[in-house]
């Protein structure tokens, strides 16, 4: 890139041409400036190993350099990536045909062995690391590397195998992984993706340059910088001061400031994240279905969306989002009806209950404020009093994810991102008896899900899921709140459309 001043300006040996704006760009298509993109998120990654993490931010940062077999488009549709073709074999396994001529950043060609190794590294604790993503690809018996293809043998039938692979399963190079230790792998990349990491300042900033040999063709960006700022106002300020180009989670009250500014605008998209209040079915007063329903009537979700989120959200009434497989269009959200709520509380026999809502701080858009609003609305029922406890997300999540339901909070706010776009990926972990995060044990619901998982007929599966959603609505293990919108601030210098799965793909940005 940086071979400045070798044309035209002959005969000056002093290298001091400080006027760097003369056409010296090597890329040669008439552009006179480098195209640099800065992205500012809420938090940085926790290491660059794409298989050794489980949060969105790391996924975004590593996802610039690593790719999986399949990918998604802006609205969640499945598209090809390292695999050009995929099919179900007769025995229910899936087979991927690999793209040819893909090479890693170090120049080595991608092999089927690499892919197989990567999958094993994720799902098999014996291979490489113990990956926190081991459940994300389903239960896999065996991975077979063929000639230009890879076959994955699931235990039983996996109806959402392709959804899983479209979201998860970054591919790494076996030899590179084996030659380097964790410390190195977490600070360097060697993927196949559009960007190559050039500078890694842990927790602060990652700088990329385009991968010149990218199979997807020329990457239009000359330099990509990913940084983070946990304060939304800081992100907005950075955007408006033109220090960065894309920022995540613009808070509602800042939207107009961004919109009104000359330098940036708002780009938002309904995300795959649903926000709700979990109620544990096994403790009083939440053991009563009436009481749980009462809570749903007590919270004025519409008002919260309008006032706290400035409308950046849609009300929900079931665990599955509208865009996702299994959504039941017949379910209406609970209306706001405090009288009905009081009546149901009375009926439940838990009048006078005192409950505490636990909420994470700053994890979801407006989480504390939403929780405060919800708690105070519940509190204003004449026969329930509700307090709020704010907790650091990591410690709250530690409680939520403990294996034992007895150790979980009674009543807490949580958000769930379903990157697979499939209803089962929400209901299974969050509402079925064996779900890692469940607050409910209901045989009927378990059975519906089990049936959905076992049917090989996609339509039938949707029906089971819709039924499950109806049941979930009625059982009301949650106070159904809303679907979150991803609100991005985007500099006017670029044109970029956000994705609904919260992944950021600056390689699709263009200069404006």
């Amino acid at each position, binding site marked *: 890139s940086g071979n400045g001043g070798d044309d035209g300006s002959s005969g000056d040996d002093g290298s001091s041409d400080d006027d760097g704006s003369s056409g010296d760009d090597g890329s040669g298509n008439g552009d006179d400036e480098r195209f640099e993109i800065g992205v500012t998120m809420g938090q940085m990654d926790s290491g660059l190993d794409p298989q050794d993490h489980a949060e969105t931010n790391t996924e975004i940062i590593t996802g610039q350099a690593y790719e999986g077999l399949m990918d998604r488009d802006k609205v969640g549709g499945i598209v090809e990536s390292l695999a050009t073709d995929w099919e179900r074999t007769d025995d229910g396994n899936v087979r991927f045909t690999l793209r040819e001529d893909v090479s890693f950043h170090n120049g080595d060609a991608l092999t089927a062995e690499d892919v197989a190794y990567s999958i094993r590294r994720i799902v098999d604790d014996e291979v490489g690391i113990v990956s926190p993503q081991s459940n994300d690809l389903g239960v896999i018996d065996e991975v077979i590397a063929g000639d230009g293809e890879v076959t994955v043998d699931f235990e039983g039938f996996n109806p959402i195998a392709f959804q899983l692979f479209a979201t998860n399963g970054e591919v790494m190079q076996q030899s590179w992984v084996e030659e380097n230790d964790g410390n190195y792998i977490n600070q360097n990349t060697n993927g196949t993706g559009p960007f190559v990491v050039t500078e890694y300042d842990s927790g602060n900033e990652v700088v990329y340059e385009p991968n010149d040999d990218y199979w997807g063709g020329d990457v239009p960006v000359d330099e990509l910088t990913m940084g983070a700022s946990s*304060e*939304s*106002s800081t992100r*907005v*300020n950075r955007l408006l001061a033109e220090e960065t180009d894309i920022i995540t989670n613009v*808070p*509602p*009250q*800042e*939207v*107009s*400031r961004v*919109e*009104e500014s000359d330098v940036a605008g*708002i780009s*938002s*998209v*309904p995300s795959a994240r649903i926000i709700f209040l979990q109620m544990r079915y096994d403790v009083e007063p939440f053991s009563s279905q009436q009481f749980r329903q009462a809570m749903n009537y007590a919270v004025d979700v519409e*008002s*919260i969306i*309008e*006032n*706290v989120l*400035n*409308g*950046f959200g*849609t009300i929900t009434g079931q665990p599955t989002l509208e865009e996702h497989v299994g959504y039941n269009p017949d379910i209406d959200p609970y209306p706001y009806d405090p009288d009905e709520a009081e009546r149901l509380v009375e009926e439940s026999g838990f009048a006078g209950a005192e409950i505490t809502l636990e909420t994470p*701080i*700053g994890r979801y858009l407006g989480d*504390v*404020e939403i929780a*405060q*609003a919800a708690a*105070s609305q519940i509190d204003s029922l004449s026969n329930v009093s509700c307090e*709020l406890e*704010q*907790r*650091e997300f990591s*410690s709250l999540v530690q409680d939520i994810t403990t294996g034992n339901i007895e150790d979980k909070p009674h009543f807490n706010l949580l958000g769930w991102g379903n990157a697979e776009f499939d209803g089962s990926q929400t209901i299974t972990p969050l509402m079925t008896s064996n779900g890692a995060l469940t607050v409910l044990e209901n045989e009927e619901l378990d059975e519906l899900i089990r049936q959905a998982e076992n049917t090989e007929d996609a339509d039938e599966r949707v029906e089971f899921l819709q039924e499950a959603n109806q049941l979930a609505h009625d059982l009301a293990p949650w106070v159904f709140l809303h679907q979150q*919108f991803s609100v991005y601030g985007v500099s006017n210098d670029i044109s970029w459309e956000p994705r609904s799965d919260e992944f950021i793909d600056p390689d699709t940005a263009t200069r404006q």
Partner: protein
Amino acid sequence: MVSARVIRNLKKEFRNSALAKIGLVLVISIILVATFAPFVATHDPTAQQLDQSQLPPVGFSETAERTSSQMVDGEIQTVTETVEIEPDPDHVFGTDSLGRDMFSRIVYGARTSLAVGVLGTLLAAAVGVPVGLLAGYHRGTVDDALMRVADVSLAFPSLVLAVALIGLWGRAAVDIPDPFVVAGLAPEMPESFVLPITVVIVVGLVNWVWFARVARGEALSLRGQEYVKASRALGASDNAIILRHVLPNAITPIIVLGTVQVAAIILLESSLSFLGFSGTTLSWGFDIAQGRDYVSSGQWWISSIPGFAIMLSVIGINLLGDWLRDALDPGIEGEGGAA
């Protein structure tokens, strides 16, 4: 313990120093406001009125751009409208993002700040003063050990240590029933006051060493005083001497340090709650953190007003401390206090 001379000096300093007057007025107001918060506050500080959110303080009307969005055919459409927001005289300091009354939050925030400041200081003093006095009076190994502990303790910045300890121990808070509300005098106010007890404990633990150092230094110099020797010659035991002679004569710098510490701890508490390491939401630091996201969008009052509240109360306490120091330690300005 408070001799006539001390009182005279206090009065004299007070008469001559406008700053001392300001300080006293500020501190007394804060104490009154904090104590009688349920009567001073106009609203329940935690009660939300979402449709009344972000009202500016009285005297400031706001022209704000409000953008809202709607889903139209799966597309998000944003609408920006310019709204004129008039302050509501019912909310003198305006309301925050959830429509809670800022004035009442400031009033209750004073309670938290003061409670943490005073309790934390008392705790720190309760630990530090005896240790310091004993070490300074007896010297030797006890003293050596104390000084080493103090060295180590000083090596950790108090904010960092506090953050780490609270991070470790969690953010426990205790609910203390508000006697006024319980007695039915202010029924619409919160029934209990949330005291972030971990913060109090941590802040006390983090700051005890300052008291220990000062108490030790005083004890060290007082133990050589002839009246201490005289007392020993009369047959007084060491503990009696510490109680009767050393402590009373060391009390002045300890009190002065105490006021400084209250101020420092109020600042520390606000830093902690700003960073989210507190157990209560009724805190100025917390409000600043909450309002921070609104500063640049025009709702400056949500975080400015609590900031001023901190500043004023800390200024008040510092002025009080200066006054006490000047009055109780007349050596500083070179004018002898002796008659």
